[in-house]
């Protein structure tokens, strides 16, 4: 079957080891995409988007409903689902969040928490708590034998796609003109406005973009995990811990921390499965002891 049937790492067969590492990498891909979106939104809006998990769930459900009701498959949904979630985000920002910019940032957290409850509650009401399966697109079905392990094609695609998305977003913020506006507005909003940049529009677009990123992560996740109303709220708390570890000062920091903590979680599952659900929180506590500002943080 395998090229190295006898190879073990610390008494664990290498296939099991690499398999869990892949699971960790997949989880890390989602941590990275979601913490990236949180960091982008927080950087400019100074709001922690508690609804990020719900928007991720919304992306997955958008894909699922497009398929069930309109027969629209995975590939068009990959564009449409983030677009839908992004538009919902823009509407929310215009109607509500834009009224909260002057007040304590905690209110933004509380508002988006309420929003998350409503979104989750609505989908729970109509779809129950059990998950709905979403098939892997035919193009990516099956797997590839890499010699040392068997890689399901879709999982390889998720890792590759998330890397492209994360690096693409990072490049767009660091290298484009719009990105430079965004970075400048993050530093000093009123000065940028004085230079004639339409900052309110920029804020709206940023929230829309952040929401769309969550939606994109959601549709990517649909074939891996089941499409369920609760898929976001379980994830968002871990992503918050990731964000505390990485610090939200740096976009690249959020991405790297996401992948690293996903891998750490996968490794823990190999050696001490009981602790795998809390390892990210333990790492967070250790980082708080050693470097309270976070690994990439720059706030005092």
């Amino acid at each position, binding site marked *: 079957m395998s090229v190295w049937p006898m190879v073990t790492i610390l008494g664990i067969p290498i296939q099991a080891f690499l398999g869990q590492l892949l699971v960790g990498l997949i989880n890390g891909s989602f941590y990275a995409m979601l913490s990236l979106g949180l960091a982008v939104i927080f950087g400019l809006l100074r709001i922690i988007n508690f609804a990020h998990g719900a928007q991720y769930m919304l992306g997955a459900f958008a894909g699922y409903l497009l398929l069930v009701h309109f027969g629209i498959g995975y590939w068009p949904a990959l564009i449409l689902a983030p677009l839908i979630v992004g538009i919902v985000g823009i509407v929310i920002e215009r109607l509500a969040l834009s009224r909260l910019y002057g007040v304590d940032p*905690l209110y933004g957290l509380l508002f988006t928490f309420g929003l998350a*409850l*409503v979104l989750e509650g*609505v989908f729970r009401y109509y779809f129950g708590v059990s998950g709905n399966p979403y098939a892997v697109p035919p193009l990516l079905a099956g797997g590839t034998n890499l010699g040392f392990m068997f890689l399901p094609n879709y999982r390889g695609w998720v890792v590759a796609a998330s890397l492209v998305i994360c690096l693409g977003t990072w490049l767009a913020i660091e290298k484009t003109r719009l990105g430079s506006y965004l970075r400048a507005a993050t530093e000093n909003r009123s000065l940028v406005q004085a230079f004639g940049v339409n900052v309110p529009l920029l804020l709206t677009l940023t929230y829309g973009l952040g929401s769309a990123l969550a939606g994109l992560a959601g549709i990517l996740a649909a074939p891996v995990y089941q499409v369920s109303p609760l898929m976001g709220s379980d994830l968002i708390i871990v992503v918050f811990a990731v964000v505390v570890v990485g610090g939200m000062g740096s976009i690249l920091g959020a991405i790297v921390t996401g992948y690293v903590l996903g891998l750490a979680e996968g490794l823990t599952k190999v050696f001490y499965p009981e602790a795998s659900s809390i390892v990210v*929180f333990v790492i967070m506590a250790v980082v708080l002891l050693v470097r309270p500002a976070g690994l990439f943080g720059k706030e005092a």
Partner: protein
Amino acid sequence: MAELTLQEARRQTAGRWERALLALGILALLAAPFFVYPIFLMSILCFGLFACAFNLLLGYTGLLSFGHAAFFGGAAYFSAYAAKVWSWPPAAAILLGVVGAAALGAVIGFFAIRRQGIYFAMITLALSQMFFFFCLQSPFTGGEDGIQGVPRGMLFGLLDLGRPLNIYYVVLAVFLIGLFAIWRIVNSPFGMILRSIRENEARAISLGYSVANYKLAAFVMSAALAGLAGGTKALVFQFATLTDVAWQMSGEVILMTLLGGIGTMIGPVVGAGLVVGLQNMLATSGFPVTIATGLIFMACVLLFRRGIVGEIYALLQSRRSRSGR
């Protein structure tokens, strides 16, 4: 000078009004079990105390904890376990819940006070989620089933808490003692320092206060009082389950405080009464509670951030200052 004495006089009349209202409120609570289902009242009292304990931290120290379910639910587990498995008497079981919650608060607070604002909220949420996973997997909590059939026992060997009226008045006493403790903390020199931290942390540091110690002390006190509420609740309902330690419970207590009025003495109790009442109403209607909770959250943040009691205070204040001129 005249202005000052005038304000003083106004405050005194306000104080007199408040005292009269307080006496009226206590009388109403004493008479209530003869008119309203006692279990419902006790659940309001437990959640009211929980919300007031939370408000000690958010309203008077300016720290938003998103993990208070850990203290409430943790204490419920400790008390339920002591009362059921070790057959401890009720007072001792509740005390164990308080001590356990305080210890848990010391650990979580130790990590959380290293960061401020939004990060503080996220850290408390993450650590309480860690405690949730601990409760989910640890054998002593009974996993998904929780601890059920907790005996209420005899208070001090004299009072049978199995009778609804007896336990109601005990819970009322616990509630009033807890509220009095919070009132004393808030209006002590210690409480003034907490408020100064809320208003301007940097200035409090520059005045020489070791802000970190004060924050941790406030956090532990808030956790202990939340534990008092949780331990009492475990005896009232005779069970402790994962619901009490889940993050939704942390959200619920925030909602109660926000709805009633952050930083007001009585607001959280009003908020708790409304939320518990609403949940009771919705339980029979089939309308999902989470949606209602979320909608109230959004409405509160957008429309009346001061909460119901806070808005009433603000209204009275503006009227008073207008009539004063």
